[in-house]
């Protein structure tokens, strides 16, 4: 499936590509949530999502071409504003590093090439590599929802970081 690799969404260790019907066999890797999903249900979801205005892309490890997660892009105003959410495959142990690299690939594309005014990304407060990547990219923290994310035996805050497109000269409120 490496031929589907999106050249401008390729990082050092991961790349993004469209989801295809054959990915139904690896649904836990790209479908969000902790609940089980079988191939038949995954096929329906892939077909339904193809008609969805949002876009989900597979996050793939370059070295192995294995799907390690997915990235969902949502916009309800023609990509003036975009919300990015990540799902990481439950079998992976390097979630934070994978998400951080995906962020480094996605945000510059949306902000600098797609002319998105504001890119919003939600992350958990304990995802240190992702937060560092967001700050390296010039993203600014905008919202902190207290104890919004459940972890084993504890809760952590949910953070929203936003990448503001400097080419949009909108005065502060």
């Amino acid at each position: 499936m490496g031929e589907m690799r999106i050249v401008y969404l390729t990082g050092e260790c991961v790349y993004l590509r469209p989801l295809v019907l054959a990915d139904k066999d690896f649904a836990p890797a790209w479908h969000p949530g902790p609940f089980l999903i079988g191939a038949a249900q995954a096929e329906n979801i892939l077909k339904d999502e193809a008609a969805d205005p949002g876009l989900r892309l597979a996050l793939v490890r370059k070295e192995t071409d294995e799907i390690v997660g997915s990235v969902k892009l949502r916009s309800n105003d023609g990509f003036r504003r975009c919300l990015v959410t990540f799902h990481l495959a439950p079998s992976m142990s390097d979630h934070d590093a994978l998400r951080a690299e995906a962020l480094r690939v996605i945000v510059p594309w949306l902000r600098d090439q797609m002319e998105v005014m504001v890119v919003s990304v939600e992350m958990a407060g304990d995802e240190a590599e992702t937060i560092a990547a967001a700050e390296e990219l010039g993203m600014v923290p905008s919202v902190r929802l207290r104890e919004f994310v459940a972890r084993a035996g504890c809760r952590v805050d949910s953070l929203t970081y936003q990448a503001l497109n400097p080419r949009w000269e909108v005065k502060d409120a």
Partner: protein
Amino acid sequence: MRNPIMVGERVYLRPLEVADAEGLASIDAVETDTFMWRGPMPSSPLGHEKWIAKLYEHRPPKDIVFAVCLKEDDRFIGLVSVYAVDFVNRVGETGSFLGPAEVRDKGYGTEAKHLLLEYCFDRLHLHVLQSFVLETNTRSSAALAKQGYSLAGRTKWADIKNGRYVDGNAYDLKRDEWLAARDAWLRSRSGD
């Protein structure tokens, strides 16, 4: 009362029904306030019917929407809701809407919202709730503060209002904060 789930002194909450679609479109048709979002928007009962039917497709539901009704005559006066309910993280996003304008400023909204919050915290056992309003919607911001919500941040360029992009205010609420706010509201009602 018809199918009450949560019952207050003057209002009660019941499941929203497809039969409420016409009532929702009627409320939209006579909307005169513009403080909530960009401005009033007409709607079709057919669209509401589809949306309401969809609410019941998922089990457990993603979005839970109550019809707010007056106890005295069962009149349907709006909605209170918890959206994007996440039963793993035990969180959700609340929203409310009462109409037409003549039913606002009578305390029905506050009463309905406390019933919704009781449902969220004490029946669904959610841990934290969030809510979101445009910065220009000072009326809803003030209502959220009275219900115990805290400002959690601002999202840039959230929507357009009055010819420019405006920010959005995000709020969050935990159960103990809601209980304190509800106690204060009950005391104020009893004149203590």
